[in-house]
C-alpha cells in the first residue's frame, strides 16, 4: 500500500458512485491535501457534483474513500443552498449546534456573530433566511459553512445563479477563506473563476477524472485532448456524449 503524504486529508482510490444504472463517478483516484484550493471543472453531467458528494461522504460509493483526519470537520455549500424557514441567525445557530454540540452556547453564538460579520449580513440577522436575495442566501450558506471552522469546505457551483456583483462578493470571500489556510474543493463552470481562485484543477469527463493538474499547467499546457475542446467551448453535445 502506497504511503500518502502527511498533508493528505482525503484520498480516493478507484471510487465510484452510481445512481441506479447511471454511473456518475467512475474509478476516481485523487487526494485532497491541506491548503488545496481545487476547482473541479467539466461539462454538464460530467460528475462534478457527485465527485464533491463522494469526497464529502454524503453519497454511497464503491471503492476506497479514506479520511486521514477522521476528527476533522467538513462542510458543504450546495448549488441551491437549503435554508431552514427560520431567521438568518437561527440558521447559523442550528448549523453550529449540529456541528459542535459540546461547545458552550456562548462560544457558538460568538462564532455565529463572527460568521455574519465576515459575510456582511449582520444587519439582516433577524430577517427570515428565505426572504434574502440569491446572493445573500449564498453568502449565508458560506457563513454557515465557514462558522463551523471546517478543515475542508466543499462548494458546488457557489456562484452559478448569481449576478456579477454577488459573484464578485462570493469570490472575494472564497479568496479570504483560502488565504486563512482553509482547504477548498469547488465545482464550477466558470473557467475564469477556476483560474483566479484555484491552485489545482480537476477536469472531469463522463464521470472520470481525466486531468488533475496545478492551475497554471492546466490552463497553459494546450495539449489536453478533450479538455482543450472544453476550454475552447467546442465540446458540443454530440462530442460530449
Amino acid at each position, binding site marked *: 500500500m502506497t504511503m500518502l503524504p502527511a498533508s493528505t486529508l482525503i484520498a480516493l482510490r478507484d471510487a465510484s458512485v452510481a445512481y441506479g444504472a447511471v454511473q456518475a463517478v467512475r474509478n476516481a483516484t485523487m487526494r485532497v491535501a491541506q491548503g488545496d484550493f481545487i476547482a473541479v471543472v467539466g461539462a454538464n453531467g460530467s460528475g462534478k457534483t457527485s465527485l464533491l*458528494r463522494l469526497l*464529502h461522504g*454524503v453519497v454511497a460509493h464503491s471503492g476506497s474513500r479514506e479520511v486521514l483526519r477522521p476528527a476533522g470537520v*467538513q*462542510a*458543504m455549500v*450546495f448549488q441551491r*443552498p*437549503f435554508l*431552514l*424557514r*427560520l*431567521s438568518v441567525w*437561527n440558521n447559523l445557530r*442550528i*448549523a453550529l449546534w*449540529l*456541528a459542535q454540540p459540546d461547545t458552550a452556547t456562548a462560544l457558538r453564538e460568538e462564532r455565529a456573530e463572527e460568521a455574519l460579520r465576515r459575510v456582511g449580513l449582520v444587519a439582516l440577522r*433577524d430577517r*427570515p433566511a428565505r426572504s434574502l436575495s440569491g446572493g445573500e442566501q449564498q453568502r449565508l450558506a458560506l457563513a*454557515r459553512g465557514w462558522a*463551523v471552522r471546517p478543515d475542508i469546505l466543499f462548494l458546488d457551483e457557489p456562484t452559478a445563479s448569481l449576478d456579477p456583483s454577488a459573484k464578485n462578493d462570493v469570490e472575494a470571500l472564497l479568496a479570504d477563506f483560502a488565504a486563512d489556510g482553509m482547504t477548498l474543493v469547488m465545482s464550477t463552470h466558470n473557467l475564469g473563476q477556476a483560474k483566479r481562485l484555484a491552485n489545482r484543477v480537476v477536469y472531469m469527463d463522463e464521470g472520470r477524472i481525466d486531468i488533475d493538474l496545478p492551475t497554471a499547467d492546466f490552463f497553459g499546457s494546450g495539449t489536453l485532448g478533450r479538455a482543450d475542446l472544453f476550454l475552447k467551448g467546442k465540446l458540443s453535445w454530440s462530442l460530449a456524449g
Partner: protein
Amino acid sequence: MSAVLESFATAFRLIVHADPALVRTVALSLAVSGSACLCAAAFGLASGAWLAVARFPGQRAVLLVLDTLLALPSVVVGLAVYLLLSRSGPLGSWGILFTPAAMVIAQTILVLPIVTALARQVVADALRDGGDQLRSMGAGALASAVLMLMHERWAMATVMLIAFGRAIAEVGAVMIVGGNIDGVTRVMTTTIALETSKGDLPLALALGFVLLVVVALLNVAIALFRRGSSPLAADLR
C-alpha cells in the same frame, strides 16, 4: 321555500342571542375535537416525521396500512372503541363509555392516520429538498426529523386544520361512543342529525352554520399565523 327561509331566520336569531343550548353544544364539540387533535398531534406529527427519516424492514407495508387507514369509516372507529370501552370490553373498567373522554379517544383514533400520513409526506418532501444539506451539517435521523417539522410548521398547521375539520364534522363515532346524551355528550353533528330527524330545522341549520364559521375562523387564524402576524410566528423566525 318560506319554511326554509324561516329556518334560516330562526337559526340567525339563535346565534345572535347566543342560545344556551347552542353555546353548550358548540363548546363541547370544540373541546372534544380540539382535545382529539392535540392527542393526534402529539403522536402523529412525531411518528409521521420518524417514518419519513427511518428505514426499517416492512416499512412499505406499514405505509400501505397507514394510507389505508386514511379512509377509516368513523362508524367502524366508533364500533371498535365501543367494544373496547363497553362493560364487558377489555377497558370496560375505566367506565368512560358515553362520556366526552370516550369521544376524544374515538376521534383521536380517527384523525391519527391523517396526521401521521400527511406529516410523513410533508417531511419526506422536505428531505428530498434539504436532506443532503442536513446530513452534510451532521444531522442524524432524529435531528433531521425535528428540524424538518420546525421547517414545515406552516404545513403542519394546515395538516392539523385538516384533522380538526375531519374530527369536528364526523358523526358516526361520537354518536356510538357518546350516546348523544343531552347536556353531556351531545355535539354539533349529533344534534344536527337528531334535530333534522325530529323536523326541528332551525337548530340544525344554526349548528351547521356555526360548524362552517368555526372552520372558516380556523382558516383565517392559520392564514394570519402564516403571514407571521402573531408573536409566536415572530418568535419562530
